[in-house]
């Protein structure tokens, strides 16, 4: 415990780096997958190849991507950009399927009604299609957020990894405490992020609560 007290500053620093490295890719990935998914629903022949390609990208080991990316991007091997780009690739490769499924879950009648009352395609996407797709998109968002948080640590192998650096440190010094602290904080971070997403989803879909409420008994 004294180790924790002595190193609070360092732990805090790494926790912040960890959070940044895990969450920024989720946001970037969402910003990329929504337009991409929208295009794929308009040109539906694109959907299957996109999802399949995403599956292949997701199967690439993270450590491999962290190392190969600099050669492609021209960044330094020890740059945080590689981690962010790698995790963004994972986020998009997983989210694209949820965005497409979510947008496809919009009932035809709803879409036609929106067109009939004069919604343009952009306005309809923002005001009708995306809100309806929120539950499906959020299901994917929760998976990638938790996966990203656990994957950031692997970056410690190449020297950038937020809490993952506690793992390599503990290992090098043959000292258990930092490893346990790192694992626990990483799990907690994932738990909190997941809870926040659940809350955010509820806020974004107030109508879901009305539907979920038990039906009023009719006498």
């Amino acid at each position: 415990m004294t180790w924790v007290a002595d190193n609070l500053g360092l732990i805090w620093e790494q926790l912040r780096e960890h959070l940044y490295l895990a969450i920024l890719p989720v946001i970037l990935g969402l910003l990329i997958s929504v337009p991409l998914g929208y295009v794929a629903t308009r040109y539906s022949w694109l959907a299957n190849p996109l999802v399949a390609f995403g599956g292949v990208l997701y199967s690439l080991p993270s450590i491999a991507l962290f190392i190969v990316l600099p050669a492609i991007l021209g960044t330094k091997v020890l740059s945080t950009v590689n981690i962010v780009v790698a995790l963004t690739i994972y986020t998009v490769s997983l989210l694209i399927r949820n965005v497409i499924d979510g947008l496809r879950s919009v009932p035809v009648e709803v879409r036609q009604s929106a067109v009939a009352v004069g919604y343009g395609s952009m306005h309809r996407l923002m005001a009708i299609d995306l809100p309806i797709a929120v539950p499906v998109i959020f299901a994917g968002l929760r998976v990638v957020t938790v996966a990203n948080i656990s994957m950031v640590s692997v970056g410690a192998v190449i020297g950038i990894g937020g809490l993952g650096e506690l793992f390599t440190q503990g290992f090098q010094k043959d000292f258990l405490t930092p490893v346990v602290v790192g694992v626990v904080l990483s799990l907690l971070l994932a738990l909190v992020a997941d809870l926040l997403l659940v809350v955010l989803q509820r806020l974004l879909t107030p109508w879901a609560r009305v539907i979920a409420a038990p039906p009023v008994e009719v006498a």
Partner: protein
Amino acid sequence: MWEYLSDSFNWAGPEGIWARILEHIWYTFAALGISAAIALPVGLRIGHTRRWTFLAINLGNAARALPSLGLLMLAVLLTDQIGFLPVLIALVALGIPPILASTYAGLSGVDPATIDAARGMGMTGREILTKVEIPIAMPLIVSGLRAATLQIVSTATIAALVSLGGLGRYVVDGLKLRDFPQMFTGALLVALLAILLDVMFAVVGRAVVSAGLKD
């Protein structure tokens, strides 16, 4: 990188590329085998009896949050040794949850009416499990094994950090020597191996899924 790969000296011998690939495959399948030997029976039992279901559901979710690197270091420090055993423990810990969760999910997805019909035909519990539930759950069971394999094959790379072999050697040694071509070689080979295993599972999946389930 091509220079490194095209030099035949780098391919042969006990520390050559072929040997590293075989080591990597050996770690992967050893861990996968043990994970499956533990997770499949447990998942089948939970799915068949519908008891302890919260365990199967929550374990699958929680496991995604486990940092693999931390788990490996934890296993090394707790077993107080370096080598195959802690790596195996860490890899098995990563392999069990996806197999368990999707085996359970596969079985719980079987229509209760189908099971009733099987029971009505006079099938015993064991027959229902082997002739009805498992065949119907097969696509999900295979996808659980596939997810576990990908997780294990990629984590086996960091086994080199605790002085084991496998393709991770190139990554770890390359990093120490600032020999980036060597790192790329390792990374690329792991990625290729992962894709290869993924394709293999897709083929196996097709072969073991009952014809009645294909559309």
